[in-house]
C-alpha cells in the first residue's frame, strides 16, 4: 500500500472533518439544552453564501466573514424567537429554514448575477493563500504532511472543540445547559433562566455554523455553489445522535464521517467512471450503519416497551 496515499487520505480527512466538527460541537450544545435543531444545515448554507456574496460585493474578505457571522446569528435569533419564545414546532421551523436556505441564495444569485448555480469569487480570494504554513510542524515527518498547510479555521476548530468541551463539563454555564436539557422544570425551579441558556446555546451554534460555512465556501474554494452544505447539517445531527449528545463522542463520529467523505473523494480517482457516482452513497451508508451499531446495545435498556423490540 502506498504510504503517500494513506497520508493524503488522512490529510483530506482532517480537511473534510473540519466543518463536521464545527457543526457538531455547536449542535451538541443546542441538543444538550433540549432544542432539537435541524436548521444547522440551513444556517451553514446561509453563512457560506453570505461570506462569499458580501465579500464579493464589498471587495473585502473581512466584510464577508463578519456578515457571515451576522447572518448566522440573526438566523438563530429568529429560530429562538419562533421556537423557544413562541412555542412553534421545532422540526417544522427547522424544515422551513432549510428550505429558505435552499431557495434564497438561488433567487438572489439569479437576480444579481443572472446565474442560479454559483458565484465565483476567486478574483478576491485565492484558496491557495488560505492555507497556513506552521513552522513547528515542518520538522515532524508524518504530522507535517497531515496537519500542516491546513486552513486557519481548521486549527481554530481543534482549539474550539477543546474549549467547548471544557465549557460544557467544567463550568457553571455548562451545568446550567445540561440541567436545562435534562429537566427543564428543575432548572426553572432553582432559578436558571432557561430561555436565556437556550438562546446562548443557539448563539454558540450560530458561530460554529458560520465558521463551518466560511470554511466550506471562503477558505476551501473561494466559490459558492448552490447546495454547498450537501446534507452536512444532517450528517452532524446523526453524529450528535450517535454520540448520545456527549461532545467528545459526537466529535469522534464527526471525524469518522469526515473520513468516509475523504475516502469517497479518494476512491473517486481509482474506480471506473461508471461506478464513481455510486461512491457518493458511502458517507450516508456509513452513517446509517453507525446509527445501527450505536442503537442496538441501547435497545434493551429502553424503558418503553415499544422501543425495546416487541
Amino acid at each position, binding site marked *: 500500500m502506498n504510504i503517500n496515499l494513506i497520508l493524503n487520505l488522512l490529510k483530506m480527512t482532517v480537511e473534510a472533518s473540519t466543518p463536521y466538527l464545527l457543526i457538531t460541537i455547536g449542535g451538541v450544545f443546542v441538543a444538550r439544552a433540549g432544542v432539537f435543531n*435541524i436548521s444547522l444545515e440551513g444556517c451553514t448554507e446561509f453563512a457560506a453564501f453570505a461570506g462569499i456574496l458580501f465579500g464579493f460585493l464589498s471587495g473585502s474578505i473581512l466584510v464577508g466573514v463578519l456578515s457571515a457571522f451576522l447572518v448566522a446569528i440573526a438566523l438563530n435569533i429568529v429560530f429562538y424567537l*419562533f421556537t423557544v419564545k*413562541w*412555542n*412553534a*414546532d421545532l*422540526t*417544522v*421551523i427547522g*424544515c*422551513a*429554514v432549510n*428550505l*429558505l436556505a*435552499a*431557495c*434564497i441564495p*438561488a*433567487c*438572489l444569485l*439569479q*437576480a444579481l448575477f443572472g446565474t*442560479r448555480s454559483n458565484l465565483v469569487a476567486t478574483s478576491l480570494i485565492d484558496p491557495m493563500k488560505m492555507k497556513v504554513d506552521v513552522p513547528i510542524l515542518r520538522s515532524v515527518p508524518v504530522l507535517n504532511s497531515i496537519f500542516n498547510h491546513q486552513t486557519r479555521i481548521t486549527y481554530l476548530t481543534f482549539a474550539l472543540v477543546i474549549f467547548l468541551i471544557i465549557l460544557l463539563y467544567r463550568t457553571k454555564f455548562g451545568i446550567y445547559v445540561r440541567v436545562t436539557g435534562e429537566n427543564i422544570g428543575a432548572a426553572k425551579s432553582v432559578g436558571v433562566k432557561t430561555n436565556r441558556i437556550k438562546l446562548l446555546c443557539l448563539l454558540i451554534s450560530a458561530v460554529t455554523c458560520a465558521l463551518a460555512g466560511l470554511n466550506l465556501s471562503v477558505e476551501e474554494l473561494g466559490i459558492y455553489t448552490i447546495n454547498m452544505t450537501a*446534507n452536512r447539517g*444532517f*450528517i452532524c*445531527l*446523526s453524529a450528535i*445522535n450517535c454520540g448520545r449528545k456527549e461532545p467528545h463522542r459526537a466529535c469522534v463520529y464527526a471525524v469518522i464521517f469526515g473520513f468516509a467523505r475523504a475516502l469517497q473523494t479518494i476512491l473517486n480517482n481509482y474506480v471506473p467512471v*461508471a*461506478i464513481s*457516482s*455510486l461512491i*457518493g*452513497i458511502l458517507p*450516508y*451508508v456509513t*452513517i*446509517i450503519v453507525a*446509527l*445501527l451499531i450505536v*442503537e*442496538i446495545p*441501547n*435497545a434493551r435498556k*429502553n424503558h*418503553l*416497551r*415499544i*422501543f425495546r*423490540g*416487541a
Partner: protein
Amino acid sequence: MKGDTFRRKAVNIGIKFCDIVIPLILAFGVGAIFSLICGCNPFTLYGYIIKRSFLSVGGILNTLGYATPIIITGMATSLSLKAKVFNMGVEGQVFVGAFAAALAGYMITGLPTFLHVTLCLLTAAAAGALYAAIPGVLKARLNVNEVVTTIMLNSIATIVTGFLTQSYLGTGDAYAHTENILQTARLVKLDSKYRCTTAVFIALIIWAFVFFLMKKTKFGYDINCIGKQVEFSDAVGMRVSRKIIWIFVIGGSFGGIAGATEIMGVNYNFVNTFSANPGIGWDGFFACILAGSEPIGVLLYAIVFGALRYGALAAQTGLGVPLDLINIVKSTLVLFMALKLFANHRSAFQDLLTRARKKNKAALTAEGEDVL
C-alpha cells in the same frame, strides 16, 4: 348562555381565520420584497400567477396536473405527522417508486393497458413501501431518530437511481434517462395539451382512503393517540411499534405511487431530475405541515402548491422571474403558519380583551357616578 356559546364559536373561527390570513399576508409580503429585488412588480407577478393557473380551463388542468403528486405525497406525510413521526423520506420513496414504475413500464410487455398500468402502480407502491420500511423498522425497533435516517435514505435513493440510470439503463443520449415506457403503461391525459392525467383520480381515491382511515377506523384513532401520548398508548396495550412500521409502509407506498404517476403520466421515462426544486415529496410535506395534517386542508394546500408550481414556471418564462421566488413564499408561509400566533397565545389576547372591557366598564360607571 346561548349567546355566549355563539360568541365563543365566533371567536374560535375568527382566531383560525386570523391564523391563516396573517401568515399569508406576511409570506406574500416577504415574497414581494424578493420580487422587487428581482426587478419585478409583485402585483404583476402574483396577478400573473393567478391568471395563468386559475383563470382558464387549461390553467386549471395544468394546476391539477402539478397538484396530483403533491396531494398523494401530502396524504402520505399526514399519516406519519398525525402520529408525530417525522417521515421526511417521502422524497426518497418518490424516487424509488418512480424508478420502479419506469422499469416495469418498459420491461414488462404484452399486457393489456389496464393490467399494465395497475401492475406498474403496484410495483411502485411495493418499492416505496419496502424503502420506507427501513426507517420504520429502525424507528420502531431501535428508536433510531427517523429525521436523520429518512434524510440519509433520500440522498441514497437519489444517488443510486441516478447511478443506475446513467451507467446501466441509459439509452446513450446526451442526458441520462431510461427507455420510454410502453403505450400500455401510460396514464391518459384528460386533454392532450395539458398536464392533468387520470392520475388525478388515483390521487382522489388515495385522499378518500386516508380520510376514511384517519377518521373512521380504529387504526386512525390509534395513530392519533400515538401522536398525542406515546407512553400512554403503549401502556394501554396498543402495539405502537408495529403501528409505526405500518405508518411508514403505507406512507411509503403512497410516495411510490406519487412518483409513478409522474413517470406514467407526464415524463414517460425516468430522469434523475424529474422531481426538482424543492421536490414532490417536500412539497407534500410542507402542504401537510400547513394543513396541520388535516385531509381537507392537505387537499386545498396541495392545489395551491400545484398552482404556485405551475404559476412559477409560467412566470419564469413569461416574466423572467426566478423559480425560487415562489419557494421563498412557500417557506416563509410555513414559518409563519407554524407560529399559530393567535391560537397558541389565545389567553394573552383574551386577557387584553377582558382588561379593555373592564376598563371600559369602569370608565362607564365612573361617568355614571359623575352624572349622579
